[in-house]
């Protein structure tokens, strides 16, 4: 099982380690600075951190010792906007979409057979790829230049963003990603070309007749099963979905208990029929149902969903679990969850029970196990 957990928070990075006395905060980095995303890369044991300074922009730092020391590396940078290129306007607000890095929203490692490949999803919707371990980055223009981008729009943030990147363990050239709001995209050639999918997805918030438009879908988060990557679970703005064909077509589940709204999803690495969610009251509310926090699990491929409450606060608990704040370890039994109100919980029994490690941390933006440990 994993014994090191990394948190990216509103006020820095925190490493949490398990010793004989349980899980404890071991050390912190970048105190006072936002860390929206972390990537513990199991291939080379490097830890990458997106460090977002309020005034001075986002940087990427990399550690070779689980965050004890760091080195600033290259950061994804949008190339100069070509002279004469018209602005793409947000379809909702008719304001120009920036050609600047606003936020790093996802960092993922390439396949085991392509050392040095890293993927980075950003707001306002640009995907970046590194082939040299983060020494340099290039905007994936084949996606950025797709005409459908003119239909993408922001959800909670002002601009669209790529928050989920799933590299197929069987074929590293196949990558599925999700955009809020911009649907589900797939490349089969390492990012040279892209197609979008989404049959079955329904965006209830769109005007009549446009609910099934693939480009307007708001997947909050997708996660694929490690041993069965054709199974992809999605927490969508309008409900829970599961695909059995790698993200091309989707089945909707309206039987979430106690709710189908939420942001996070984690899929069991070996059991594609098992996934965890954190339900909340849709959609302007975004708080636990009845102020009682629970994790919701299906173990039967969506036939039923059960709320898991043991160890989680059940009275006046208004924790919001952001989309990157629920992670499952490779053992499929150890889960971690962090909240906007600075609580972090661990479960070592597949979510049946939870232990709070701290209620005193800054708002949590991402939670990731060291999967090589």
């Amino acid at each position: 099982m994993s014994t090191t957990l990394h948190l990216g928070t509103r006020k820095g990075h925190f490493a949490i380690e398990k010793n004989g006395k349980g899980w404890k905060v071991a050390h912190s980095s970048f105190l006072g600075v936002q860390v929206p995303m972390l990537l513990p890369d199991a291939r080379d044991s490097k830890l990458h951190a997106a460090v977002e300074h309020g005034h001075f922009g986002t940087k990427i730092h990399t550690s070779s010792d689980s965050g004890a020391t760091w080195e600033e590396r290259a950061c994804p940078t949008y190339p100069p906007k070509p002279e004469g290129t018209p602005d793409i306007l947000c379809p909702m607000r008719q304001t120009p979409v920036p050609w600047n890095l606003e936020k790093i929203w996802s960092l993922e490692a390439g396949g085991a057979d392509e050392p040095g490949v890293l993927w980075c999803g950003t707001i306002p919707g640009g995907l970046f790829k590194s082939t040299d371990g983060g020494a340099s980055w290039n905007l994936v223009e084949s996606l950025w230049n797709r005409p459908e981008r003119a239909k993408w729009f922001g959800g909670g943030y002002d601009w669209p963003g790529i928050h989920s990147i799933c590299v197929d363990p069987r074929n590293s050239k196949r990558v599925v990603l999700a955009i809020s709001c911009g649907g589900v995209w797939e490349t089969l050639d390492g990012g040279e070309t892209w197609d979008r999918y989404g049959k079955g997805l329904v965006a209830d918030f769109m005007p009549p007749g446009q609910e099934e438009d693939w480009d307007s879908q708001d997947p909050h988060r997708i996660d694929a099963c490690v041993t069965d990557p054709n199974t992809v679970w999605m927490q969508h703005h309008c409900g829970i979905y599961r695909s059995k064909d790698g993200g091309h077509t989707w089945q909707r589940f309206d039987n979430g208990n106690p709710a189908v709204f939420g942001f996070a999803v984690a899929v069991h690495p070996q059991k594609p029929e098992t996934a965890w969610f954190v339900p909340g009251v849709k959609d302007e509310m975004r708080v636990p149902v009845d102020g009682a926090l629970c994790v919701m699990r299906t173990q039967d491929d969506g036939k039923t969903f059960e709320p898991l409450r043991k160890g989680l606060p059940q009275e006046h608990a208004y924790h919001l679990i952001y989309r990157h704040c629920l992670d499952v370890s490779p053992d499929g039994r150890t889960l971690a969850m962090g909240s906007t109100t600075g609580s972090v919980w661990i479960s070592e029994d597949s979510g049946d029970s939870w232990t709070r490690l701290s209620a005193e941390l800054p708002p949590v933006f991402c939670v990731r196990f060291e999967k090589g440990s």
Partner: protein
Amino acid sequence: MPLVEFTPNLASQTSAQACRVEGATVGESLQAVFAKQPGLRSYLLDDQGAVRHHVVVFVDGAAIKDRRTLSDSVQPDSEIFIMQALSGG
């Protein structure tokens, strides 16, 4: 040669050091700074080369007008001061 100075907040995040550089405009002066301290560029300018939204550049006590192409002129004895714009924490 204009003198370029930085807020201590920036110096705490980087190795920014005050320096004198050649330059007739803010842009020329900053490019000369970046030639000496390349890591500073992304802290001050956005991807398109404009001054970051939450950064302010003063020349002799006045905020520059052209934050996009940095064309404000500077004199040989000018002092360029770079600080963060006040915003919430």
